[in-house]
């Protein structure tokens, strides 16, 4: 993509809040290196003048370094890159503003250049004294003071105070509270992934208790569906799938891990404990079965069974993935580049990469086809069954982490260019110097690493986790690049709020349900999502949150909601993955089995989407179309698209057609007798609000047209109403059912239905 730099700057400035400052502040605001200058240098200069010594160019011995205060002010032979307070004497300003192609920095060959605004910002920063600061996310958050406000009536909690302060600065006012129907639908979808029934919605709307909303939130957080919904985010991070990956991609039995995640979320396991169990449950004293299953987190790496592959090569690939995933999930840090060379933008060396690698290098697993080591687990309830001769109870096995005995420990060496055959110096387990040290005296194993990740002094984890939960609910993180908190990531849009939330998480001992409740009970969350032309022009991405969140649901929610509204959704939880209807391709995987499958029987056809068999080489097609990842690598953030192929899924996929058919039967049996009553019932069931007259008329007209269309065509009607759902109820006219199926199909495709609003 070509974006002229000046326009990019505009966006960056918008994000850092520069242009949203009120116009009357004439004095130039103090610039912060980490927030205002480092992103420019990181993007444009660090590649050659950054942490990676091997790429560093210019300057004296060892190259010119612009990512440290010392590097910037080193004597270059009578002149200096940066002379604090004196931009005119600073070589960097001369070079970035030069018009001479041999002089200008960055050199034209890099295809990079600084915009006039970037140059003037850098110059202004030098003028102000060139004060250096450590990258913001590497400094532990301290609880910021709450800002003073003009309007003290609106905020319901501290979140609102931070948000309102920013809105007041931008001369914006918050939106009114969403109507009660919209609110109950929004919070139900956000907490359980499922819409409320009309009855549930009505009872909330008519609940006069001033605490009705808070009580409703508590009830939703206590539902088993809560864990099922929130598991999706974690399973994306854990790259959980039911197959081993690569060409043949054989089935892998690891669903006990998925169930562990659901149960842990429902039990509101503190996040630090949740972390320690997954990274190092096996190293805890007398680990429980649950803690062993938790370690399957890092057994979700791929195994390559292709003939002629070197197991040691792919064992190394799995360890690399564990390092990358751990740093991405907890630290919001992309470290993959340091596998081959020192990081170009952040202070992470290749040696430090392999020090992290060493933590994971003692695991017994070695790209084996049998996925050993495994734990044999009796499912809850299984062991209680009497073990009578005829039916032996077979335990479920799950791949787990288990370290080699000490005398068999592997030696970890730096791998040149990331090649496992080109080895360099030996390293021992340790954490990068830019981050807090491991606690004194701790063993240098995964357990120490796990504890370090959730240590209260870790500056990143609380921010990264708080941001991720925020992103789930508000659609975009306070740090929009929720996958990257380093130099190349976004600046936080509300830095104080993010720090306040991070401190809150640690102070509440990682109580995640309490944290979610805090977010959804804020006034900000409860606002109407209506978009005014003013807001659309000032804040199209809703970073200021002067309105409620509104965005498309995830692939899983799209499916679950359609099944829920139609009455088909099975409430069954846990267990082996299921195979709902999917189109046949008549193909096999390379060196593997068929990519088609035998559809599950009975209610297993209609389970929640997260129980669908996840084969990496062939993700369930309708979900892939709605941006579900293929779970081969850790996915921190899904992209939301809006495409014609999505329309084809919800219009024509037999799963959705069947849902419309089941919905039609609900409409005619429980929705009153007149077309108007039925249309109202259908509309309410889907959208959780009363239709207006125009909307009602549209549906009734479509119904009547459909009924007239099908009346003379009973065979077509039977297909429309019964293929694939099956036998039609005898007590209703087939044409009627077919026409309501068409109406249901429309409702299940409405933009409003696919959106959280």
């Amino acid at each position, binding site marked *: 993509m070509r974006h002229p730099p000046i326009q990019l700057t505009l966006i960056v400035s918008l994000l850092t809040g520069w242009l949203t400052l009120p116009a009357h502040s004439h004095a130039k605001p103090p610039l912060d290196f980490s927030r205002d200058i480092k992103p420019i240098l990181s993007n444009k200069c660090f590649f050659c003048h950054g942490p990676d010594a091997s790429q560093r160019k210019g300057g004296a011995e060892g190259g010119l370094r612009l990512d440290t205060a010392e590097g910037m002010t080193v004597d270059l032979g009578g002149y200096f890159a940066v002379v604090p307070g004196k931009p005119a004497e600073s070589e960097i300003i001369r070079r970035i503003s030069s018009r001479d192609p041999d002089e200008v920095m960055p050199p034209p060959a890099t295809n990079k250049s600084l915009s006039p605004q970037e140059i003037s910002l850098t110059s202004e920063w030098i003028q102000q004294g060139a004060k250096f600061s450590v990258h913001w996310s590497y400094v532990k958050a301290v609880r910021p003071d709450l800002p003073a406000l003009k309007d003290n009536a609106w905020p319901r909690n501290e979140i609102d105070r931070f948000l309102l302060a920013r809105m007041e600065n931008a001369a914006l006012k918050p939106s009114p509270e969403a109507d009660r129907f919209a609110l109950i639908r929004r919070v139900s979808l956000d907490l359980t992934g499922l819409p409320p029934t009309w009855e549930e919605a009505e009872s909330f709307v008519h609940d006069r208790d001033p605490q009705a909303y808070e009580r409703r939130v508590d009830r939703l957080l206590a539902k088993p569906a809560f864990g099922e919904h929130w598991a999706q985010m974690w399973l994306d991070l854990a790259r959980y799938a039911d197959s081993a990956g690569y060409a043949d991609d054989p089935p892998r039995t690891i669903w006990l891990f998925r169930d562990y995640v659901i149960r842990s979320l429902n039990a509101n396991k503190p996040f630090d404990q949740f972390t320690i169990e997954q990274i190092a449950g096996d190293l805890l004293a007398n680990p429980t079965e649950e803690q062993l299953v938790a370690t399957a987190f890092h057994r979700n790496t791929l195994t390559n069974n292709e003939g002629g592959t070197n197991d040691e090569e792919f064992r190394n690939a799995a360890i690399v993935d564990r390092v990358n995933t751990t740093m991405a999930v907890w630290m919001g840090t992309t470290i993959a580049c340091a596998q081959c060379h020192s990081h170009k933008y952040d202070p992470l060396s290749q040696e430090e990469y392999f020090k992290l690698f060493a933590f994971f290098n003692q695991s017994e697993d070695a790209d084996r086809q049998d996925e050993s080591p495994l734990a044999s687990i009796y499912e809850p309830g299984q062991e209680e069954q009497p073990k009578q001769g005829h039916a032996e109870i077979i335990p479920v096995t799950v791949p787990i982490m288990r370290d080699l005995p000490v005398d068999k420990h592997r030696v970890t060496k730096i791998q040149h260019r990331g090649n496992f055959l080109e080895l360099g110096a030996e390293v021992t387990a340790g954490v990068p110097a830019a981050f807090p040290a491991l606690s004194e005296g701790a063993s240098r194993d995964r357990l120490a690493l796990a504890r370090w990740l959730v240590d209260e002094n870790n500056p990143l984890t609380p921010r990264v986790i708080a941001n991720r939960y925020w992103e789930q609910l508000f659609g975009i993180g306070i740090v929009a690049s929720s996958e990257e908190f380093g130099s190349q990531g976004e600046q936080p849009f509300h830095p104080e709020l993010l720090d306040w939330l991070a401190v809150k998480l640690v102070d509440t001992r990682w109580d995640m349900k309490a944290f979610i409740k805090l977010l959804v009970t804020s006034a900000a969350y409860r606002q109407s999502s209506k978009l005014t032309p003013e807001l659309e022009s000032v804040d*199209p991405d809703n970073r200021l949150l002067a309105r409620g969140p509104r965005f498309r649901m995830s692939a899983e929610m799209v499916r679950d909601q359609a099944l829920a509204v139609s009455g088909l959704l099975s409430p069954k939880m846990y267990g082996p993955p299921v195979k709902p209807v999917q189109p046949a391709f008549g193909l096999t995987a390379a*060196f593997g089995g068929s990519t088609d499958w035998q559809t599950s029987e009975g209610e297993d056809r209609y389970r929640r989407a997260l129980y669908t068999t996840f084969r990496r080489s062939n993700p369930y097609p309708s979900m892939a179309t709605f941006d579900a990842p293929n779970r081969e690598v850790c996915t921190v953030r899904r992209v939301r698209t809006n495409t014609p192929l999505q329309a084809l899924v919800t219009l024509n996929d037999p799963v959705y057609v069947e849902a419309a058919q089941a919905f039609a039967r609900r409409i005619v049996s429980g929705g009153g007798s007149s077309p108007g009553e039925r249309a109202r019932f259908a509309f309410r069931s889907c959208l959780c609000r009363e239709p207006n007259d125009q909307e009602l008329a549209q549906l009734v007209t479509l119904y009547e047209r459909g009924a007239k269309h099908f009346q003379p065509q009973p065979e077509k009607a039977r297909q429309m109403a019964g293929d694939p759902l099956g036998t039609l109820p005898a007590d209703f006219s087939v044409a009627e059912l077919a026409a309501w199926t068409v109406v249901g199909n429309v409702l299940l495709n409405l933009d409003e239905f696919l959106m959280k609003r």
Partner: protein
Amino acid sequence: MHPQLERLQLQTRRHFLKQCQLGFGGIALASLLAGDSPASPRYVINPLAPKKPHFDAKARRVIYLHLTGSPPHLDLYDYKPELVKHDGQPCPGEFLKGKRFAFTSGVPKLMGTPRRFAPHGQGGVWMSDAIPHLHGAADEICMIKSMTTDQFNHAPAELLLYTGSSRSGRPSMGAWATYGLGTENENLPGFVVLISSGVQPNGGKNSFGSGFLPSVFQGVQCRSKGDPVLYASDPPGMDRELRRHSLDTLRDLNDLQARELGHPETLTRIVQYELAFRMQTSVPEVMDITRENKETLEAYGAQPGAASFANNCLLARRLVEQGVRFVQLFDWGWDFHGTSPAEDIRDGLTKKCATMDKPIAALLKDLRQRGMLDETLVICGGEFGRTPFREGRTAEGGVLGRDHYPDCYSMWLAGGGVKGGYTHGDSDDLGFSIARDKVHVHDLQATILYLLGFDHLRLTYRFQGRDYRLTDVHGEVVNGIVA
């Protein structure tokens, strides 16, 4: 890419289009809705709208013919008389030292080709007797005899070729091309995948996936049976007229919401449903080869209803003719180890080539006759090459096979800005290493993007704080093959 930019592109952003001119074409909603739009004429940013590349393109579209498993290039394209002379002799140690092979250990025996070779066309492009129809197309072909890759296992090598990395997670070549260029026909997917011989590629859907690019850029796999594009058919019992009525209702209800809540994404959704409606007609039409005349079907060896490579070659032409940007074919069964008679480089190869040779020759000729070849880049090859020696496991049997070989192999391109009747690079006398003009798969990727009008260094996408590109951190355009 910047997360904001990404969202801005995928949603409707009037102000953004006005202010930033990111390069995505704007299209008036009204025109998309056949002139009777209830919505006010706003602009919609369509990520698949046609876009201009960095500079004038030589090729506007690509047909990539992947022979999954990797054909024995020493029995098709790269004639090594010295290897024939030394056939059966132990492989000299210098060629084995420090090397790893998938299924061969110890000292294997050299194997000269049992096939007859000759130079063809005015350019004298060497080909064996396994591919007689391609002899006639020799002057369209730009043969590269100095290809090399880093991987010797199928899945990692295929991922490296198509995504620039041997590990999963990156966007595929077709996704990059579609991301950069959009599509010329909104009523069809921009990137279409056709699979024959019953097996999907080694990299699974990753070989045509969108990786971290938005899913709208992923390859759409078309089927030979059932709906050609998944869910393109209306449900049983619903006819087109009723579908139109239901979509009218859907549009009107959505439009009421758009007016009520003011969200531009609602309008985008209306547009997507209208595109879907048209796609329902245009996809079956383009996928219906019975619309071709008898001569054409015969030229390709295509048979309506079959799921063959021949049909897919014909479909590829029909698709690019309709403006599809990137058509990717995968044909299984080219992994000539010698573990069965089908994998023998004599009869087995003759039989397998019979399913590929004629259709590809017909495709090149057809594109030429329609005046499309100059703007259509055709590429044909595997994920690596095959060894100049007999595969270890099968060395004692009666079937002749070769092991995987990444160091030096051949593949070819045609049309779309490359020199026809031309041979680039060469291997050494025994075919073990590159004698001149090395072309790494990253160089091939850079060249393909160059032919499509892109500087591969600048076709980037910001993800996890880094600007990613197809060529990873490598790649140089192979100027020698550019016409």
